[in-house]
């Protein structure tokens, strides 16, 4: 192809000069950095910055930053800052975790947006001996057979959510169609709910494992239509769920077969739109729940004021994971690893009627979940859910429903 010689917008000589100046900048770094670094407590944030999961991590990060701002960006009276690195893949996440610890000298790390990444990250946390508070991933093994002394996990494990959810979905019938994503979260859902269905003497009408980031579900929907199940048990995450629900409605299937899934994210349902939104789900938190304690209501109001939209569940998850970590450091009056871990093990949040805390035996956060259902008619672009119940209904059953660490296969190392 013919074209004239390329022209530089900046003259070559000036560009060279600029490049030389940039190259020389690190020489000045030793004289600038220590003054600021000496007193600053650095916390790592490991969350995906791209991909479909970025829809959730935006809120996780917003909640995390808000938790620090609420404290005036200080911990123990010292300035504190968050250093956010990407989670491009399990291996890339491990490398970034290493960078946070070895180069940025963080004292603890928050993050873990995808189960596949978080499982890799928790192994690295143990190697590096750094407290890791996972604010999103739900794979059962994280606080089961893969548990370790350095990892704390906020989200309720898939198997526990499945057990909590089962009484609500059995009413739809016992012929289920499984539609689960082909990665740790989806596989976990399929395994947990198949056990429940077997115990209930139910039947599997279909069992489709869906590749992640599937853009078109029409062929899957045709199969579901042919199978005529009582209910669809979903296990597709984030944007994939939004796409499925949009196409479910587009193919005239909304209202024909109930859709049930655990761990819905508000951002997933907001992306669907009022016309297509449908289903029964578990959720950790809902901004419009009248029973939220005053502190959480204040958080929701603060979030709305700052970002101009309601706090999604992921914002709360980012906020509460960070808040518990910051308060634990404050409580421990130290940034030493063992002191932070002890602080987290003694931390308590929530209200008297609805408390939550990190269990010492497996570092799993014990908290009650919500069962939410899409409203029959959605008139507000944010307000999609009616809260149908809190699970377990009885607070005394909380420890029981989570199962003991030993039963879950956790032998803390």
């Amino acid at each position: 192809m013919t074209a004239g010689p390329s022209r530089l917008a900046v003259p070559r000589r000036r560009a060279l000069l600029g490049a030389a100046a940039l190259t020389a900048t690190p020489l000045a770094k030793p004289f600038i950095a220590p003054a600021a670094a000496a007193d600053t407590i650095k916390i790592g944030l490991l969350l995906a910055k791209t991909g479909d999961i970025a829809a959730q991590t935006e809120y996780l990060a917003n909640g995390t930053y808000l938790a620090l701002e609420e404290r005036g960006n200080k911990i123990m009276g010292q300035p504190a800052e968050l250093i956010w690195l990407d989670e491009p893949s399990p291996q890339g996440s491990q490398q970034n975790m290493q960078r946070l610890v070895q180069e940025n000298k963080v004292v603890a790390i928050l993050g873990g947006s995808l189960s596949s990444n978080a499982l890799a990250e928790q192994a690295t946390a143990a190697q590096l001996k750094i407290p890791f508070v996972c604010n999103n991933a739900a794979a059962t093994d994280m606080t089961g057979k893969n548990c370790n002394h350095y990892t704390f996990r906020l989200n309720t494990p898939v198997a526990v959510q499945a057990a909590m959810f089962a009484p609500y979905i059995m009413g739809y019938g016992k012929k289920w169609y499984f539609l689960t994503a082909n990665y740790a979260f989806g596989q976990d859902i399929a395994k947990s709910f198949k056990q429940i269905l077997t115990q209930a003497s139910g039947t599997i009408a279909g069992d489709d494992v869906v590749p992640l980031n599937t853009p078109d579900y029409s062929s899957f929907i045709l199969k579901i239509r042919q199978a005529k199940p009582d209910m669809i048990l979903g296990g597709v995450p984030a944007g994939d769920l939004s796409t499925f629900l949009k196409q479910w409605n587009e193919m005239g299937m909304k209202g024909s077969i109930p859709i049930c899934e655990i761990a819905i994210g508000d951002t997933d349902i907001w992306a669907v739109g009022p016309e297509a939104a449908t289903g029964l789900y578990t959720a950790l938190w809902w901004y419009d729940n009248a029973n939220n304690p005053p502190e959480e209501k204040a958080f929701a109001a603060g979030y709305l004021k700052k970002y101009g939209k309601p706090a999604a569940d992921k914002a709360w998850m980012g906020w509460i994971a960070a808040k518990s970590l910051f308060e634990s450091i404050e409580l421990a009056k130290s940034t030493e690893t063992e002191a932070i871990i002890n602080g987290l093990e003694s931390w308590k949040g929530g209200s008297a009627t609805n408390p939550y805390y990190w269990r010492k035996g497996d570092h799993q956060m014990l908290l009650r979940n919500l069962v939410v259902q899409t409203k029959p008619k959605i008139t507000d672009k944010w307000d999609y859910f009616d809260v149908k119940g809190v699970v377990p209904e009885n607070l005394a059953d909380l420890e029981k429903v989570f199962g003991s660490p030993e039963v879950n296969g956790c032998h803390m190392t």
Partner: protein
Amino acid sequence: MLDVILSQVATGLVLGGLYVLIAIGLSIIFGLLGIVNFAHGNFFALGAFFALTLQQHLGWPGVLLAPLLVGAVGMLVERILIRQLYDKEPLVSLIITFALALMIEALLRLVYGGIGQPFSQPSFLSGIYLWGPVLITKYRLTVFVTTIVLLIALWAFMQFTPYGRILRAGSRDPEMVGLLGIRLPRVLTAVFGLGCCLAGIAGVLAAPLWTVIPSMSQNAIMPAFVVVVIGGLGSFAGAVIAGLLVGVVTALTIQFQPDAATAMMYVFMAAVLLVRPRGLLGERWERFE
């Protein structure tokens, strides 16, 4: 079983139609400009987001402007960036357009936020058709018919208009076209704009079906490349045949081996390349050898 297969083939053809529309712009840009445009999926995403904004402000008629806007953005990008790449190594254009892809996604994230935006088809296109075992929605049928009409119009433009002849000649021997007194840079700008406009149309049509999110380009770009490679780089007819085949292969895989649905199009691509290394209708082009 025949019912099931028929039904899935019909669904696959409709899906393939959308893949064709995404891929054809990529194929035209490569065939005529020699640029492998990694940002093509992002122009697709721009189409979806422009449609969203225009629908909110001007209603459904406004959505028609979205592909034109994408085409205009494409022409601007060609003038500023792509034009510098024509005489460079192919690797340079790969890197630059990859960077452009990241930049467009970041810009969309900055303007619209990271979360998906709700967007459904207009109510007059809601509903389904049932012919025996075959179920097709009114909207998907509209997408398929629109794709066919566009492809015929594009083919006629390239074959029967003087402008189309200049484009085809320019893709084979740009120097000769220049010597004949034709201002090729303007033609190239228009070609890049046209390719982006086609991606924009695909984005607009996909917006009610896919989740409208800044990262939606990733779900578009890989099938587009697979379709172009199977069809033969730069081949218009090849892209059409390949797109429809990829759609049908994907749909049938979902019926029988759903977890391999995405992988199967790559297996199909590998199988085609083993038999025909230049793709189904790929030709030997001196300038790319």
